[in-house]
């Protein structure tokens, strides 16, 4: 089971049933994560990340239907992060006053839906697929910036709570309509 396929695995093979305890815990984890991000409690958010996290957002390209597997491009990324770079990003946003692109911050809302979960060979790790719609409002713009995506996560149980061990963000645009990804998805 690998996240490198074009299609989602989570929820199809070895599914963790909707409504089962693990499913509910994963959902709780993702909803609270969204709340932390939306409320710019980024130092708390870092606490949810595993030390070996891989956090990526591959490029997308337009391809014909019969080349659908090539629409996700994993040789270049919009995000290609590890724990160090994520912490640096958070430190920049929270501890300096010159992270201008997000200070003043935009008002973001991360709506999380379509959660599907699968077990893995490791009983403490779960493949998680969720959909996100992020609305983003900056200054007094009358229109929201929007971004929809699937997030393919590996969530790991550590000492009774979850950590995010991998996230791959499958963005739905080949040319993003946001001026930056100065916010996390």
């Amino acid at each position, binding site marked *: 089971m690998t996240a490198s396929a074009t299609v989602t695995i989570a929820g199809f093979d070895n599914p963790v049933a909707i409504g089962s305890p693990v499913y509910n815990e994963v959902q709780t984890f993702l909803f609270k994560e969204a709340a932390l991000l939306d409320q710019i409690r980024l130092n708390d958010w870092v606490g949810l990340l595993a030390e070996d996290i891989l956090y990526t957002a591959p490029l997308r390209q337009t391809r014909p239907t019969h080349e659908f597997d090539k629409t996700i491009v994993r040789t270049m990324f919009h995000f290609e992060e590890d724990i160090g770079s994520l912490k640096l990003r958070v430190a920049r946003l929270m501890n300096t006053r010159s992270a201008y692109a997000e200070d003043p911050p935009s008002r973001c809302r991360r709506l999380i839906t379509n959660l599907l979960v699968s077990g893995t060979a490791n009983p403490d790790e779960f493949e998680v697929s969720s959909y996100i719609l992020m609305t983003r409002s900056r200054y007094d713009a009358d229109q929201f910036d929007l971004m929809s995506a699937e997030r393919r996560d590996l969530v790991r149980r550590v000492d009774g709570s979850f950590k995010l061990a991998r996230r791959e963000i499958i963005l739905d645009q080949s040319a993003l309509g946001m001026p930056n*990804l100065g916010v996390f998805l």
Partner: protein
Amino acid sequence: MSSFERRLSDGTRIEDLIDVDTREVRVRTLADAELHQIEMERIFGKVWQLLGHESEIPNPNDFMIRALGEDSVLVARDRDGEIHVTLNVCPHRAMRVCRSDAGNAPTHRCPYHGWAFRPDGAFIGSPVGGETMHGKLLDKKQLSLKKARVTLYGGLIFATWNIDGPSLDEFLGEMKWYFDMLFDRTDKGLEALGPPQRFVLRANWKSASEQSASDGFHAYTLHEWLGQLAGFGSGDLTSSMLGVEVTSKLGHSLRCMPMAQKFERGAALKDTSLSLAERLEILAPPGIIPSMAPELERHLSTEQIEQLLLQPPQVGNIFPNLIIEHVYVPQPGGKPLGLFAVHTYMPRGVDKMEFVNWLLAEKDTPQEMKDAMRKMGVRMLGTSGMIEQDDSDPWLDQAVLAKGAQARNITLKYQAIHNPERPSWWVGPAEVYEGFTKDDTQWNWWLQWRDLMLNAG
């Protein structure tokens, strides 16, 4: 039509927008829709534009779609390996001929009525051939995709609609001596580490482009955190302000900062008793490893190599809308990590632009170093780049503010002027200014903009 004298509809002439004496530009220039249309003709219809790197389409019949100004173009390699750039608009009824971002195809068939074209744009024919659907008024040559002129430079694909205009060499002018240090220094040359990041900002392309013309001063405030968190300038960015700025009336520029000033170990580079490979061991340009020493020597002159080692170009631009990032990122170990990128800022109407970001390395850069350069590039530049997301924030503000009836009539100012004296010790060509960063490079950008905009020819 190009000879029709154009005034903006309120009577303003283009020359009214720039005060050459006081080095001021009206803010409305960043938000005027009529001006924009003229730019598309007189600038983007004339200049050389970067579309990608040949390593993106390595095989015969490989192709990719790119924007050239506001036009869609097909960038394709023919079966003989030659690269062609053609307007991706069907000469029959203006349908998009090629609709995949990239791929491999010996022919491109328009979905509307089936006209087919070769990778070089040549018209093959229309379906049900005997019926000559394309008619007989024009011969087949006239039914080909409109063709741009192409020149490869270090594998970078440049194209222009100005078929009989200056060559790319002439377009780069004296500055090419410096650009060669970056783009044409190893045997196998550069490669793109992947397709470019692409994202769209509500900003005018000139906001990005005039900044790219070596606006040095902004780093001190806008990138203040680099000193605080990322070890730039050992915490004091003032030192990043010092260096040499080279530029020319063609609108290109580069900022070259002494390695000895930026990095402790930089001082050791000056020891000319060391071999080139040994000096590269101390501190090498992005993507370069010591074993490439012979290649550098084959491709560059001694003077170029000395500058590349001691005071290399670090940021700069090619007029009108290309920025170069050739950066040495401080690392805990003391040895910086290289970062090498080019971006283009492609207009999408007067109030939007597309940011296209390629990360580069030498083809022979070790994979591990390429990976590190790609990660650093993604983290610092482009979409989510910790440096460049702040660079673009002013562009967004300018686009909104320049619409105000008061704001549009105030000016952008370029009044920090270098001592015109050329540093005697400097060996490279073009205009050369030493010291604390000033506005001369950006002003040259605007003068070149003005020249093209006043030239209807």
